């Protein structure tokens, strides 16, 4: 056996079923035994960035480790963006890269890039294997590290001669994963605070999804009657149809969710990290709230906002413990009356464009209604992403897969490809922007060839819409370099790649075209939704301002201008 075969056997042994990648010189030895593997499906992507995001999509759709593979040098550096993306969104991803042979490492050999050093700040850990006998246990360790604790990307760099050299096979040890032990005193304190709070909020982040703790969250929420907000990474962790759900907080959150956090006397943060897109100006964030902060990563606790009660632990353990110790909450009648008032006065909404063009928000809400909550939705980054977070109703954890921390344009199509590989029985819809789509649409060729029937709804506003929105609001409507023009023809482009290409530009056509796409099962479908260019994402908390200054439309600041809630 050589190192390459040991690698493939090790991947099989740890349960890897799908690898996304592209071969090349240094990783070539690994592709030879991979050719014979009956257990591993290799998906040949068109760009390594696609392979990396596909691994992330797969990981989020399955809850298992996503794997991508690339050759040395440019293959490896093309993985940098997906690794940074997976790092910021805490996704279990293992990247396997070829490297030049050991004797020439450090000589600027052909296609040599020091990928370990390049990725140090964006990987949880990395290995460069120098002894072929180490391959099985390094792979096992990499998988365990990627998936345990706070998940994250792990890089395994394999010099070509190590792959080619004889290797001894040792069965990788099954991983021993210890979850941090919860501090019972902290749990008691949290339960006490919950019992006494008059204005509590559950601030739910992606950690609840990663931990598979959504059912326990539902139990705690119903036991206590406490309002729930779900961040961009946690959409679906609590059902949108649930009356206690106030929606998404943050820069483009609902007025009720933003106000709830702002006016709370107790914030219970569950697997969330007080990101600036949620808190707005930290100095002005939730001034009266005590904070219970539960996270598996102690480094997140008190990083941005001091926690009064730190709870280091897996969200499953935290929620189980809270369910066991919380009796009933206090009387939240006044609190709910205030929040319900906000919900009724400031629901999410949108205006139809005056020029008669299609409202992008309408398109996205119709997709959500027709396709339903059993599907998986992915998105790119921009206005369409925020509308996908606001206007699709999510009922299941992990049903919205998007790039939260890094905000990576081009995420939607490859992530959808990865998701459908992991969840072939679910419909997968990518809600993409015309700008984002032009960064990674080549993976549609991969999807067509591999029989991966994803649906892509391109929200084609002819612009880098989110940037244009900022130019409109903060740069005097000077639209510098944000118009994308009207080419290419996305429907024709889709057809050229072996997909079905459709187009819709009017309100009555929306339902029909979505149904037409849903009926196609053997090929990917792209729908070019030609929408108005001037629609904006509201509400909005402008970057750096306080959440109190949330605007429901240009210049309209409901929490500043009125006294609502001042007497709460």
């Amino acid at each position, binding site marked *: 056996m050589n190192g390459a075969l040991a690698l493939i056997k090790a991947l099989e042994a740890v349960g890897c079923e799908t690898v996304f990648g592209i071969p090349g010189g240094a990783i070539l030895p690994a592709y030879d035994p991979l050719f014979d593997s009956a257990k591993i499906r290799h998906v040949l992507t068109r760009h390594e960035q696609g392979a990396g995001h596909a691994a992330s999509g797969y990981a989020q759709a399955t809850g298992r480790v996503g794997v991508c593979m690339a050759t040395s040098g440019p293959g490896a550096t093309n993985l940098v963006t997906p690794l940074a993306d997976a790092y910021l969104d805490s996704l279990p991803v293992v990247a396997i890269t070829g490297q030049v042979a050991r004797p020439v490492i450090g000589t600027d050999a052909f296609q040599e890039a020091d990928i370990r*050093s390049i990725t140090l*700040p964006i990987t949880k850990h*990395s290995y*460069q294997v120098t002894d072929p006998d180490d391959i099985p246990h390094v792979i096992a360790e990499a998988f365990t590290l990627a998936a345990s604790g706070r998940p994250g990307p792990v890089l395994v760099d394999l010099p070509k001669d190590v792959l080619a050299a004889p290797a001894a096979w040792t069965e990788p040890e099954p991983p021993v994963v210890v979850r941090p032990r919860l501090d019972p005193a902290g749990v008691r304190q949290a339960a006490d605070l919950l019992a006494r709070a008059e204005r509590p909020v559950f601030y739910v982040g992606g950690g609840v999804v990663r931990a598979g703790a959504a059912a326990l969250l539902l139990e705690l929420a119903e036991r206590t009657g406490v309002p729930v907000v779900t961040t961009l990474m946690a959409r679906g962790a609590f059902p949108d149809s649930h009356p206690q759900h106030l929606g998404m907080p943050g820069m483009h959150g609902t007025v009720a969710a933003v106000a709830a956090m702002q006016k709370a006397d107790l914030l219970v943060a569950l697997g969330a990290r007080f990101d600036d897109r949620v808190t707005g100006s930290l100095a002005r964030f939730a001034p009266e709230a005590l904070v219970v902060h539960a996270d598996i*990563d102690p480094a997140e606790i008190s990083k941005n906002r001091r926690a009064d009660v730190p709870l280091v632990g897996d969200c499953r353990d935290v929620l189980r413990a809270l369910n066991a110790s919380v009796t009933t909450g206090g009387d939240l009648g006044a609190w709910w009356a205030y929040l319900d008032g906000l919900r009724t006065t400031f629901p999410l909404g949108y205006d139809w464009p005056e020029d008669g063009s299609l409202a992008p928000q309408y398109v996205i809400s119709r997709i959500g209604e027709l396709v339903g909550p059993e599907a998986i939705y992915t998105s790119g980054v921009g206005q369409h992403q925020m509308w996908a977070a606001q206007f699709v109703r999510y009922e299941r954890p992990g049903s919205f897969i998007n790039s939260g921390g890094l905000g990576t344009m081009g995420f939607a199509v490859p992530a959808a490809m990865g998701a459908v590989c992991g969840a072939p029985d679910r419909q997968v819809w990518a809600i993409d922007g015309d700008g984002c789509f032009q960064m990674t649409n080549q993976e549609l060729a991969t999807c067509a060839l591999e029989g991966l029937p994803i649906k892509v709804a391109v929200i084609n506003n002819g612009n880098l819409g989110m940037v244009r929105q900022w130019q409109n609001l903060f740069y005097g409507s000077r639209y510098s370099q944000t118009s994308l023009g009207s080419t290419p023809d996305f429907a024709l482009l889709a057809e050229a790649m072996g997909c079905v290409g459709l187009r819709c530009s009017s309100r009555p056509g929306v339902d029909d075209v979505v149904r037409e796409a849903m009926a196609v099962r053997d090929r990917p479908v792209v729908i070019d939704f030609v929408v108005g260019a001037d629609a904006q994402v509201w509400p909005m908390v402008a970057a750096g301002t306080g959440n109190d200054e949330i605007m429901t439309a240009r210049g309209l600041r409901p929490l500043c201008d009125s006294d609502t809630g001042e007497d709460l």
Partner: protein
Amino acid sequence: MHRLSLLLRNKPGALARVVVLFSTRDVAVESLSLNPADADGLSRLDVQVRLREGRSVDQLVHQLRRVVDLCEVSAA
């Protein structure tokens, strides 16, 4: 100024990961010295660092503990 004392496994990349973490988190390194530790396969890294205003050394210690090849860290 804070003194940190770290015990690292002698694995390739361990020192680099710690140093990059300082740079990523905008921690200024005033002095740094790496020496073999008493135990086999371990090194002792003594560092003096300056933190940005408002950042806590506890937080830095937690971030250092995420480094897989770090065995121990203490701050004085």
